[in-house]
């Protein structure tokens, strides 16, 4: 060290330090509660936030969507069946496919044959079919190619009618049906998830909290129930019950609670044996208070996460049931039934499938992302 420096220090600094405040035990970082940390982590997670917004948007649409135009969900009009989507503002954006036209490419050994095929397909309304020759052809099979665009709204004298998402095989407005179907699917999913929660938490919680014989018996029963595949039970239940919203909810809840109860039981068992519960007991806290103040806050995270994940499961099962015809019965709509109808018309009228498929996929993806985000948020290790 610099000897000069050392000797130049004023001597009056070498006196005992007079302390102003006791700074030895100061804690320097701000203290935050667990839920504050969790909220922060969640809202920092951009995909999760985006997904939550999407879910909210879809929920809102499912409520107000059908009111946005004048069609009822059940107005059947065969004259207006199978109309493609047509949105006023987007009509001129040709690649979006919302301009109220049907198009396709047709092949033949020459342009004439190809054109003939196009006409056949599109009600032979030649004056409303725009043709574009892609390949003149040379007489060999399928060498000529023609792209035909059918201005179907004009052809059917519906110049002022707009079906935003098109119409289905019976002439019903798809936009209205889509949002009503989404509503039905969401209701089923949420109610089923809540029932799962209620049953699962009670079963698992009681089993774990009382332990001993109670736990033993309850777990044996659960083990046996778990041995039966979900889908099988659901299908069997649907056979017994009349198809409809309530039956689906019941069928879904009968199987869904087991997963939740297992997780809750696991958590409660873990917590029960942890030292802070023991400490609380030695201080004389009652059972009820222990449950309320110690167990519930610690398992609430996992319950929320699990519920978030059971919603897409319920959506899927409902969709599947409706898809195979055991779920929502026509003329009611649900995402599954819409997809089922869409599949039937996939080749010629793909839009009937596209919209419900997008909605259900977005819903399920969004719920999964939010579930993941919540899982991270409630994990103290992920709090930054």
């Amino acid at each position: 060290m610099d000897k000069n420096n050392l000797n130049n220090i004023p001597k009056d600094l070498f006196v005992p330090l007079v302390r102003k405040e006791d700074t030895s035990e100061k804690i320097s970082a701000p203290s935050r509660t667990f839920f504050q940390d969790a909220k922060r982590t969640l809202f920092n997670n951009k995909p999760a936030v985006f997904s939550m917004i999407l879910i909210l948007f879809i929920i809102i649409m499912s409520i107000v969507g059908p009111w946005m135009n004048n069609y009822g969900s059940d107005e059947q009009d065969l004259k207006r069946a199978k109309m493609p989507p047509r949105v006023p503002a987007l009509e001129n954006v040709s690649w979006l496919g919302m301009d109220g036209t049907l198009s396709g490419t047709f092949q033949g050994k020459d342009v004439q044959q190809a054109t003939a095929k196009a006409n056949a397909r599109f009600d032979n309304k030649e004056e409303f079919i725009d043709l574009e020759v892609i390949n003149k052809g040379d007489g060999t099979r399928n060498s000529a190619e023609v792209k035909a665009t059918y201005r179907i709204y004009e052809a059917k004298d519906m110049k002022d009618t707009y079906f935003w998402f098109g119409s289905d095989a019976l002439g019903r407005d798809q936009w209205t049906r889509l949002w009503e179907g989404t509503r039905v699917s969401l209701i089923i999913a949420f109610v089923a998830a809540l029932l799962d929660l209620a049953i699962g938490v009670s079963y698992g919680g009681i089993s774990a909290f009382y332990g001993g014989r109670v736990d033993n018996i309850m777990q044996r029963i659960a083990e046996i129930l778990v041995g039966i595949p979900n889908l099988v039970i659901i299908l069997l239940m649907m056979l017994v019950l009349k198809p409809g919203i309530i039956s689906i909810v019941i069928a879904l809840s009968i199987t869904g609670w087991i997963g939740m109860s297992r997780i809750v039981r696991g958590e409660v068992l873990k917590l029960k044996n942890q030292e802070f519960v023991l400490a609380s007991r030695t201080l004389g806290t009652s059972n009820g208070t222990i449950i309320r103040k110690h167990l519930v806050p610690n398992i609430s995270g996992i319950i929320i996460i699990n519920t978030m994940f059971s919603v897409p499961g319920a959506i899927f099962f409902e969709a599947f049931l409706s898809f195979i015809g055991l779920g929502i019965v026509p003329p009611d709509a649900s995402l599954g039934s819409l997809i089922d109808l869409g599949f039937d018309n996939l080749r010629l009228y793909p839009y009937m499938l596209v919209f419900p498929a997008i909605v259900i996929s977005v819903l399920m993806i969004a719920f999964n992302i939010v579930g993941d985000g919540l899982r991270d948020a409630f994990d103290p290790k992920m709090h930054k």
Partner: protein
Amino acid sequence: MTRYLLRRVWYMLITLFIIATFSFFLMKILPGSPLQAEDKLSEEQKEIILEKYGLNDPIPVQYAKYLGGLVKGDLGVSFKFDNTPVTTILFDRIGPSALLGFQALVIGSILGIFLGLMASIYRNSPIDFSSTIIAVIGTSIPSFVFAGLLQYVFAVKLGWFPVALWGTSAHTILPTIALAIHPMATAARFTRTEMVEVLHSNYIITARAKGVAESGIILKHGLRNALIPLITVLGPMAVGLMTGSMVIEQIFAIPGIGEQFVTSVMVNDYPTIMGTTLLFAFGFIVIILIIDLLYGLIDPRIRLAGGK
């Protein structure tokens, strides 16, 4: 170990018993009989048929016969398909389903593990990001939507693969892909999470302190610890495959058990429904049992417990 095995087998039997009983009484409640297929029979002929299938006996007797039949492997006869024994129907159909399921499981798992591994090594890089996206989409999009999409794009529009049905190996490709997405996504997610956790373990630090190269750390030290828990996920995956098969087989018109089940549900062919249910339950329980045993064998901590 053997006690554990015995206990599990015992539970298996109880579960099957319950399902069988449940199925039986369900079948009795719901309308439907071997007579469904034929309307133009005389009364006597109908009586003969009913006698033949023991349907005039009192319920307890029928129940006993039913259980007895089960033990012998007799699942009754189908109401719809000209009274073919259910076992025959199932037997014919198990091939495609088994093949499809097996392919999907193997391909899905291997790809998934690989994806998850890459994601964990290159954390927070584009590789991680895209792998996570694939995983999320794979577990989220309903299988029938995805299958339908595959069918539309690759078979109908592009014509690369046959649209439906079964027969050549080309027929298996699209359905396998559709069915494999779920196991793949699950495996990828799981592998990534496990690897990330494993790579933070103390024994990995020890290995680094020994001078083991990074590739050795990941593959030799990390992966084997990360994959062991993956076995526990195989159970739910297998269930998922069963569920998925019903959907996929429907869409691709594959003559498998799943499709059979759905069809028999739609036409109310109760014996077939019950028989298939029992088969599913049986298969499921056996798979879970095998997986539990496998887990015990592979994890040395369980295998050699009490070796101090």
